[in-house]
């Protein structure tokens, strides 16, 4: 079981380059407008890439070099749309029945109606049921068509927080239970973390190598991954003659790192929680620019003394620091070499 995607498509202001393979639950993470949904549409056959190759379980769905472009009807791909796309002119039951191909439709319909707790509403129209019910019907309808992969296009973004969690669990259970490959498009890293095993980050229309999700969160090695993993401080970096020392031109400081810097280093990531005010290594002398009280802590914006204008370090710390500091104070902060993330 596997889905292999290598596609390129010119969009109005950038070129989308999507390359990944998966045999389980993959998340496509990226900012909105980065080409994530377009990637799903190309897999489903709704949009045509400019060039590339798509293969599902050994079947070629698209191959520009051989002029193969299987029509969406024959791809066996389930697509969960953000607005569920139930047919408004058909009842819940009819919506599920039209998607079925094989025999013993009644039997299958009955098991799906029970599976998704929609037996009571089977004779209602989509306009008459709640958002949560609509999503369950949409999932049932997708499974009725027996797809080999389920594509989820920001499945929860149209919902408020309260109902969202419940639906997320329904989707997770469904995917687990039916054991299909799934690709979920999202811009929410927590959602990806909870539901997927691996993640592919799409940054400026270009996909990065697929990472195991824990690796992406703990030790990101690209700028896109660091940003998505929640790293607040990302600065341009240059390697120096000493492999363990890197230079940050915008801050005008040198930092020691635990790893050796490679030729292609572009930036460093410094997590805002990892700074300390007690003397360790990598001392940075700063001026306090601004103090902000947060829900459970405090955010301190610091300007390293030799930094270029507009380059601030964000430090997240305890609320008690708010009393000890005020704007304009001089302070030194420290970060361990192991916490200096080298990014490509």
């Amino acid at each position, binding site marked *: 079981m596997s889905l292999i995607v290598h596609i390129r498509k010119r969009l109005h202001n950038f070129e989308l380059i999507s390359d990944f393979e998966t045999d389980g639950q993959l998340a496509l993470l990226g900012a909105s407008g980065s080409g994530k949904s377009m990637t799903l549409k190309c897999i489903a*056959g709704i949009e045509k890439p400019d060039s590339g190759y798509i293969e599902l379980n050994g079947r070629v769905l698209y191959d520009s070099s051989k002029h193969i472009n299987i029509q*969406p*009807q024959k791809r066996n791909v389930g697509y969960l749309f953000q*607005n569920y*796309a139930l*047919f408004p*002119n058909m009842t819940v039951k009819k919506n599920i029945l039209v*998607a079925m191909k094989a025999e013993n439709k009644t039997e299958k319909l009955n098991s799906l109606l029970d599976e998704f707790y929609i037996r009571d509403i089977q004779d209602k129209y989509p306009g008459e049921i709640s958002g949560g019910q609509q999503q369950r019907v949409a999932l049932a309808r997708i499974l009725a068509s027996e797809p080999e992969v389920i594509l989820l296009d920001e499945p929860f973004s149209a919902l408020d927080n309260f109902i969202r969690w419940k639906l997320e669990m329904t989707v997770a259970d469904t995917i687990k239970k039916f054991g299909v490959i799934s690709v979920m498009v999202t811009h929410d890293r927590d959602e990806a973390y909870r539901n997927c095993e691996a993640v592919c980050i799409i940054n400026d229309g270009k996909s990065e190598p697929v990472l195991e999700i824990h690796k992406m969160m703990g030790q990101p090695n690209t700028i896109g991954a660091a940003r998505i993993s929640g790293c607040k401080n990302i600065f341009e970096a240059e390697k120096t003659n000493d492999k363990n020392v890197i230079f940050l031109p915008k801050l005008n400081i040198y930092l020691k790192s635990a790893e050796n810097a490679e030729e292609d280093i572009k930036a460093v990531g410094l997590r805002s929680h990892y700074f300390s005010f007690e003397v360790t290594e990598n001392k940075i002398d700063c001026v306090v620019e601004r103090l902000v009280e947060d829900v459970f802590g405090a955010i301190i914006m610091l300007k390293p003394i030799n930094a270029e204008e507009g380059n601030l370090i964000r430090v997240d710390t305890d609320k008690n620091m708010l009393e000890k500091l005020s704007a304009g104070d001089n302070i030194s902060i420290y970060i361990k070499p192991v916490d200096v993330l080298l990014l490509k």
Partner: protein
Amino acid sequence: MDWFPLYNSIRIAAIATVITFFFGIFLAYYIAKLPRMIKGVLDCILTLPLVLPPTVIGFFILKSIGKNGSVGKMLMQLFNTKITMTWYASVIAVIIVTFPLMYRTVRSSFEAFDKNLIYAGKTLGLSNTFVFWKILIPNCKDGILAGIVLSFARGLGEYGATSMVSGYTPGRTATISTTVYQLWREGNDALAYKWVFINVVISFVVLVSLNLLEKKAKNGGHK
């Protein structure tokens, strides 16, 4: 009173509306998929009859189906028949005049249609024909009905092109509008009033049904 003009008007408008319906929905569907440039040009050409004076349309029709026109000549040679000055010619005129109304109403309801429903249908394995007739058309029902009503009403009242291509022959090509004109020329006000009254009633019914359709569309359609 001779009811032929009413029968003839309804016959012409009904046949023309059925034909415009099919032309309208298919062209609206296929043109919507074309590249923007070609779409713009075709759009202009297909909407032209809406803004041209009906006499100009009548002139074009006569030039093509008349006895010296290319189509007219061919019909004469093949079937030894002519269609000018018959009620069929009125059907052709009415199709051309009402086409833009059908085309534009249907196209705007296709454009407002949620594309995800089409995509969903396709990924679920439903054929393009099924998606078109069972998903697109039923869900654009209100827009299409509005197009039908408008076309029928316009067809019923068509005068300029009809009178040029079919003339006025009582019992053969007379329609309500050509009859009213004829009666006014003859000074037969009493009968003219009757036909005017019938025309107003029909138009009124059409407008009321259009309003009802709009109201229904606003209330969300399916129940």
